[in-house]
């Protein structure tokens, strides 16, 4: 399936859930947050959330800032 992840085209294979995308991207440790098409997907729903073609996924974390 074709997704847009953090503004870039991304091909997801071997699963269709948000958790499988995060596994493929190796974003599993530490604090991060995800929204799909502008809506927050809580951590508790990552395993069940089914992605669709052309979904826009944003994955963010905290960095230094003032």
């Amino acid at each position, binding site marked *: 399936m074709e997704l847009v992840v*953090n503004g870039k085209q991304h091909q997801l294979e071997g699963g269709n859930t948000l958790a499988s995308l995060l596994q493929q991207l190796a974003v599993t440790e530490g604090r991060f947050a995800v929204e799909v098409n502008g809506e927050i997907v809580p951590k508790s729903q990552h395993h069940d959330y089914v992605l669709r073609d052309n979904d826009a996924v944003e994955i963010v974390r*905290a960095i*230094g*800032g003032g």
Partner: protein
Amino acid sequence: MTMCCGTMTPSKSCALLAVVEPSRASNYSIRATNHPVPILQKNLIMNAMQDQALRIAGVDYQSRLIIGSGKYKSFEENLAALEASGAEMITVAIRRVNLGQNPDEPNLLDVISPESYTILPNTAGCYTAEDAVRTCRLARELLDGHKLVKLEVLGDQKTLYPNVTETVVAAEQLVADGFDVMVYTSDDPLIAKRLEEIGCVAVMPLGAPIGSGLGIRNPYNIRLILENASVPIIVDAGVGTASDASIAMELGCHGVLMNTAIAEAKQPVLMASAMKKAVESGREAFLAGRMPRRLYASASSPLDGTIS
């Protein structure tokens, strides 16, 4: 920080009360003779040093300094500066994960722990209310439901001046959504009051543009904001060196937020320590109440009894 206590706790206030602690008092003139401090004198000192904690969204902070986490050479330097500053709250930015990079790359929040410090996620880089609100929602998810955010909606890349109309729109949405909003704004007293009326838990006017280090450029506006305020007023942006922080506190501000002044100092950890003292001394000077300014001299020694 502690929840909902009214005054400084003895352990946290030790820096202020050091004058009555024999072991630490050698630098103070009242101990110069090595006589014990009389009780009355001790009480006077104790009473003078009492201060309320800075309460933001129901949480009491003993430090009135908030620092940032941008522009440091390393997380470790940032943490050392944070400890030297005595700050209990630190701002962070929310940004996209760098995909494809080393997944074991250290994370800021692994070094500066949300268990030890209040993390204040900001909306820096947002130029619309919509982006700012989205960023705050992502921050809340990232920090397990944490509601405290620093709202800033910028209007111009050159000055980083706030877009106050978008800021007002975002503040209304965030307050309605249950956020505790500390809001960065211009030094306009009317906008500051409007943001308070919307329900922001702290209003944070700039002293000068972000990262400029120009100091408190319009102290009279800051005073006007303070006169009408019933939430904490925290100068955010513009501080360049310790005296700027003291000036903000002497005006009566409830706190100071700074990033670049510490991070871009030649020795950030030393500057963090300087800022801690500057904020404390400015606060004490405000509470003490300064003498009036006079155009001409006023002799400090009595004129009676001078030899002729």
